[in-house]
C-alpha cells in the first residue's frame, strides 16, 4: 500500500507535466499556425499556394518577395516607418516630462490628469475621424504623413505616460534624495540619474508605441490615399484580387507583419505592462 502510494506520487507528477506540455504545445501550434502558414506561403509559387490538399513540401523561392519589392511597396514601407518611428520619438519626448510631473514632482491634482490621459485612450477612433478628416482637408494636410504621425502621437501618448510613470515610480527614493543632498540640480538629476535608470523602460515604451502605430489601419485608410499611405493600406489592394495571388499576398503580409512580430518578441517582458498601461507588471 505504502509502496504503491510512493510510486504513484513519483509517476503522477511527471505524467501530469507531460500532459501539460503536450496540451500547451498543441495550443501554441494551433494559435501559431496562421502566422506560420503566412510565412511559408510567401516562399511558394502561386500554383503551389492554392492547392487542395495544401502543399507542405516545395522548393522555396524569393520570387514573390522580389515581385512585391519590385512593385510599389517601398513608398508604403517608408511612410509606415516615418509615421511609426516619428510618432514614437515624439511620444517619448512628450510623455517623459509629463510622467515626471505625475510621479516624482507631482502637480496638484495629478490624479485627475492621470485619469484624464487614460480616458482619452478609450475614445473610439470612429467618433473623431470625421472632424479630423474635415480639419485635415481644410488645412490641406490630408494624405500627409506628418498629420498621420501626429494622430498616432495622440493615440499613443496616454499609454506612454502611464507606462513611463510606472517605471519612474520604481526609481528608488533614496537615490533621488542622495542626489538632492549632493546638490544636483534638476537637469543633472534628470540626465545623470533618472534617465539612465529608466532607459530600459523608455525602450520598452517605445517598442509598444511602435507596435500600435505600425499596425494601425483605421486612421491610415481614412486619412491617407496615395502619397502618405502606409503598409496596411497597401494590403487593401489584395481585397478583391482576381486569379492566383495567395503567395504574393503572403509575401506582402509577411513583410508587413515582421517588424512588429520581432519588436513584440523583444518587448515580451514588458508587453503586459504596455497593454494595461502600467497597471499590471
Amino acid at each position, binding site marked *: 500500500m505504502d509502496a504503491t502510494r510512493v510510486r504513484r506520487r513519483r509517476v503522477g507528477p511527471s505524467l501530469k*507535466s507531460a500532459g501539460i506540455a503536450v496540451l500547451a504545445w498543441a495550443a501554441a501550434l494551433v494559435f501559431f499556425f*496562421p502566422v506560420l502558414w503566412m510565412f511559408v506561403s510567401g516562399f511558394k509559387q502561386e500554383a503551389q499556394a492554392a492547392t487542395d490538399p495544401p502543399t507542405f513540401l516545395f522548393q522555396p523561392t524569393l520570387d514573390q518577395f522580389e515581385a512585391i519589392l519590385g512593385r510599389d511597396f517601398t513608398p508604403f514601407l517608408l511612410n509606415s516607418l516615418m509615421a511609426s518611428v516619428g510618432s514614437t520619438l515624439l511620444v517619448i519626448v512628450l510623455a517623459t516630462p509629463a510622467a515626471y510631473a505625475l510621479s516624482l514632482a507631482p502637480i496638484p491634482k495629478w490624479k485627475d490628469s492621470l485619469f484624464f490621459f487614460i480616458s482619452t485612450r478609450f475614445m473610439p477612433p470612429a467618433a473623431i475621424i470625421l472632424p479630423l478628416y474635415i480639419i485635415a482637408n481644410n488645412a490641406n494636410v490630408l494624405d500627409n504623413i506628418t498629420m498621420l504621425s501626429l494622430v498616432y502621437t495622440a493615440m499613443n501618448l496616454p499609454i506612454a505616460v502611464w507606462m513611463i510613470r510606472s517605471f519612474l515610480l520604481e526609481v528608488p527614493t533614496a537615490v533621488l534624495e542622495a542626489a538632492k543632498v549632493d546638490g544636483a540640480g534638476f537637469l543633472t538629476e534628470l540626465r545623470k540619474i533618472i534617465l539612465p535608470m529608466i532607459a530600459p523602460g523608455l525602450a520598452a515604451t517605445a517598442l509598444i508605441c511602435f507596435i500600435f502605430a505600425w499596425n494601425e489601419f483605421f486612421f491610415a485608410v481614412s486619412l491617407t490615399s496615395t502619397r502618405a499611405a502606409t503598409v496596411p493600406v497597401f494590403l487593401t489592394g489584395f481585397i478583391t484580387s482576381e486569379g492566383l495571388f495567395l503567395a504574393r499576398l503572403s509575401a506582402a503580409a509577411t513583410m508587413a507583419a515582421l517588424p512588429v512580430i520581432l519588436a513584440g518578441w523583444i518587448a515580451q517582458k514588458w508587453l503586459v505592462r504596455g*497593454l494595461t498601461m502600467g497597471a499590471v507588471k
Partner: protein
Amino acid sequence: MTATEAPSAARERRGRAAPGLTAGERWRRRIPLLPALIVVVVLTQLPFLATVYYSFQDRNLLRPDETAFAGFGNYAEVLGDAQFRGAVLNTVLLTVTVVLCSIALATALAVLLDQKFLGRNVVRTLLITPFLVMPAAAALIWKHAIFNPLFGTLNWVLSPFGVERVDWVSEHPMFSLVVMLVWQWTPFMMLIVLAGLQSQDTEILEAARMDGAGPGAIFWRITFPQLRRFIELAVLLGSIFIVQTFDPIYLVTQGGPGQATTNLPYFIYQRTFRAFEVGEAAAAGVVVVVATIVIATFALRLFADMFREER
C-alpha cells in the same frame, strides 16, 4: 514588519504633491505636463466636441452650402434607421461573443503556462504572436488562406469530419469574424491573466497544499478570487478595443453579406466616406462614445482600485 512597510510608506509620500507649494512652484511643476496635454486635447477631445456639434447639423460633404441646424433630427434618423440598429446589434453580438470566448480560452491557457514544462518560453512566445501580427495582414491571410472554400486550410483540417467546400466567409460571416477575433484577442487577455497568476503569493499556496487542499480547491478558493480583478481588467480593456473592431470587417466581409456583419465603426465609416452624411455619422459616433463610456467607467474604477493598492 517594518522592513515590508518602509518602502510602501516611502512610496506613499511620492506621487503626492507636497502641501504648501507656492503658486509659482505649482505652475513650474505643471510645465512638463502641458505639451503632452495639449497634443491629446487638440487631437482627441476637440475633434470629439466637433463631432457633437456636427451631430446637430444637417450637413453633407458633397453639398457644403446646404448646411442647416438639425436639432435632434440626426439622432432620430439614426435611431430609426434599421441599418443602424442592426449595426448596434452586431456590435454587441460580436463583442460579447469574442470577449467571452477569449477570456475562457485565455484563462485556460494562462493556467497551463503557469505550470513548469519543457519549452514554456517558446510556447508563450508562439501564443502571443497572433496579437502582434498586423491585424490587416492577419485578416487577409485568414480570408484567403484559411477560410477559402477551395484551398483553405480550415476545410482541409475539417475534411476528415465530412466538412467539404464550405465558403466560410459568405456562408458563416459572423462566425468567421468571431474565430479571427478570438484568435487575435486571446493572447492579449492571456498575458494579463498570466501576470495575475504569477503575482500570487507562493507561500499561501504552499501553506494550503500543506493543509491538504487539492489543486481544485486551491484554484477556486485562493487563486480565482485573486485572479478576478485581472480577469475583469482583461475583459474591460478587451471590450473597449473589440467594440472598435474595424480592420477585419473592412477587409474580410465589408460588412456583408448585406449588412450581416456591419458593426458601428464600419457603419460610421460608410456613412462618412461613402455617403458623406456628416450629421448622421456624427450622431452615430456620439452613440458609440456613450456606449464606450459605460464600459470605460467600469474599467477606470478598476484602474483606480489597482492603483490605490499599488501605492
